[in-house]
């Protein structure tokens, strides 16, 4: 049996003891994040599945409920998130070329955009609360089916829509909050100069996470907000 001496490291302070070299560590972290995102797809997938089934069954009621959502705010939020993904990419790119100042700026911008998204979401939800569209004992949806002013919307089906709406956007918002937390942490460490061209894996992987949350929204938005809009 051949033996080999333990490999000599570059002594990068970020290298963890159980990895052979930085490259192995980087690849492991990256694969870990991709696998985690796969689990997130399955997680959101369950809710998307429930939503798609009920939407197929109760399309007119869902269309009516959907039209009560604020499409302007939804579109703005979509733009906000897409921009924030751009700033994330810029931050990673800055780290790759060793520009600390730029990293900090772009990470801060990402944070601001993320918080803006959450703020706008808060505004939307508040208006839903005022209109009594929050599922529960106070739920009441007034409206008629699109194209049929004489047919009222089925309250049960409308409540189903909103249950799923809040479950899905709520779960998404929770992931955004976690993302904001992660990026605050990154911002602090980037400011301290922790991320260099040799080591910026946390930035890359957190960026993956952020992009994923963005993509979930990009699916949520048309499915929830854009049912049957004929404007």
């Amino acid at each position, binding site marked *: *049996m*051949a*033996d*080999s*001496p*333990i*490999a000599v490291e570059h002594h990068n302070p970020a290298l*963890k*003891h*159980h*990895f*052979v070299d930085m490259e*192995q560590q980087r*690849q*492991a972290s990256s*694969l*870990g994040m991709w*696998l*985690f995102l*796969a*689990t*997130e797809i*399955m*997680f*959101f*997938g*369950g*809710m998307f*599945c*429930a939503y798609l*089934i*009920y939407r197929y069954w*109760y399309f007119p009621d869902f269309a009516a409920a959907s039209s009560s959502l604020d499409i302007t705010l939804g579109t703005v939020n979509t733009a906000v998130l897409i921009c924030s993904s751009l700033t994330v990419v810029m931050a990673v790119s800055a780290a790759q070329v060793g520009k600390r100042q730029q990293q900090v700026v772009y990470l801060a911008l990402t944070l601001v955009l993320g918080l803006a998204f959450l703020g706008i979401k808060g505004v939307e939800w508040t208006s839903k609360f005022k209109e009594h569209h929050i*599922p*529960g*004992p106070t739920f009441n949806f007034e409206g008629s089916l699109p194209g049929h002013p004489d047919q009222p919307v*089925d309250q*049960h*089906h409308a*409540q*189903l829509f909103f*249950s*799923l709406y809040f*479950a899905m956007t709520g*779960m998404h918002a929770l992931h955004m909050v976690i993302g904001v937390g992660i990026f605050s942490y990154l911002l602090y460490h980037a400011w301290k100069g922790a991320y260099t061209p040799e080591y910026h894996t946390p930035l890359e992987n957190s960026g993956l996470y952020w992009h994923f949350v963005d993509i979930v929204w990009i699916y949520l938005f048309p499915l929830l907000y854009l049912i049957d809009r004929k404007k």
Partner: protein
Amino acid sequence: MATAAITAERENYLNQEYGIKSWLLTVDHKRIALLYLLTITFFFFIGGFFALLIRLELLTPAGDLVQADTYNKLFTMHGQVMIFFFLIPSIPAVLGNFLVPLMIGAKDLAFPRINLLSWYLLVAGGILMLHCMLTGGVDTGWTFYTPFSTAFSNTKVIEAGLAIFISGFSSILTGLNFVVTIHRMRAPGMTWNRLPLFIWAHYATSIIQLLGTPVIAVTLVLVVLERALHLGIFDPMRGGDPLLFQHLFWFYSHPAVYIMILPSMGVVTEIVPCFSRKRIFGYKFVALSSISIAVFGFLVWAHHMFVAGISLYAALIFSALSYLVAVPSAVKVFNWTATMYKGSITFSTPMLYAFGFIGLFLMGGLTGLFLAALGIDVHVTDTYFVVAHFHYIMVGGAVMGYLAGMHFWWPKISGRMYPESLGRLAAVIVFLGFNLTFFPQFILGYLGMPRRYWQYPPEFQVLNVLSTAGSTILAVGYLLPMVYFLWSMRYGKVAPDNPWGASGLEWMTTSPPPTFNFDRAPVVDWEAYDYENIPAPQEARSGG
């Protein structure tokens, strides 16, 4: 090779550091494995206690030991505890955590801190579950069917749901850790085709853990929300569909049973070659069968719903697919048998457990074929036939495999040998107790006794009494290893590096291993199960 004749104890992962903090804040995968061992053993006894109460109640047809509501809580919590807090973690979290880095020649798992987090998540979920049980319990059945669980039960459904939700993340993170470790941290020369089949089995298991568990997580979230806010996602009186719950639930819970059995198969695949002194027959096919089971396992969930109200055509499709998934399992059994052919077989304790596993898994699996047959399933589903079927696989299969593995690797984990004759005795007691407990249940189910029954018609009593008698024997069989493993830690013979003459990198380091697993990082240039070149145990022990 190091021998057992050492007076001064070498530094190893157990004695490197003492103190409770060094255990609770460890990132050493071997210590975490032991933390898991404590936790799941604890929950095994809780679940087992509930089982004993159930069997005691069922001694008589009338409901005379506990009240109906209590009984309903007993079987619910028996199921939840055993599945989520014992079986799903068991082999991966104890043996997998301990052995995966060792077997591939790595110093630790890819993410040691996440590994520790996994344990804490299981403990947190477990504490919440304990609290739930102590303050009222839950009576929905471990399957939580709606609308009973969301709109009718008066018990602590939300708390139980959250407890399982939290523990699910433990499972997901363990799976994530294993997949990354196996991909990225193999020692030089350890190619995919040289990996021990235990690793292949855990790889397949981890894929299921990763992709399946999130679905039950989100389902539980929806159930909790529905119950708390009176939504109608699964309640037909509010526009929802109870079958949607069942589909979402079983989409995870069927693959979950493969999480519970694949690791055991991996254990058996290590033990049979060792105690036959022969390489495994058909390495590639066994590896492929693990992956096939993982893949096909995701396609068969609605075979739990044949009488639930699904369409005829859906039932036909799922029945056909269920037969497909049986083929790889059969292949494994054939390969193990073929490995024994022209071998040189020793009847050590691990091998006895492995024999038990193969026989009982075979019976459980074949009865699964009955259940997959639509015509038969209508008669036996929701009866004790199903209960017997899954206990044959879970207990006769998974738990036997777990015990087999614990005995096989105990010298490596603890540095001590367990007493072999007691080990064999316990194996036989477990095997006999198990069969007496569960074989009568096949007959009970066929005769028509439904499951989850607190009271039953008198004609079913004799078989129930037999089953309860068996369960007491089984309990003794399980207590014995607990006792002698503990005894061996102080009084057992000191173990050599490789007491069984087994193949695998874990046997090429000391028993117990040092904290960083290997004094020198291994480089592999031999095939797996290289038994023609490994001396049999007697020669290895002759130095000590």
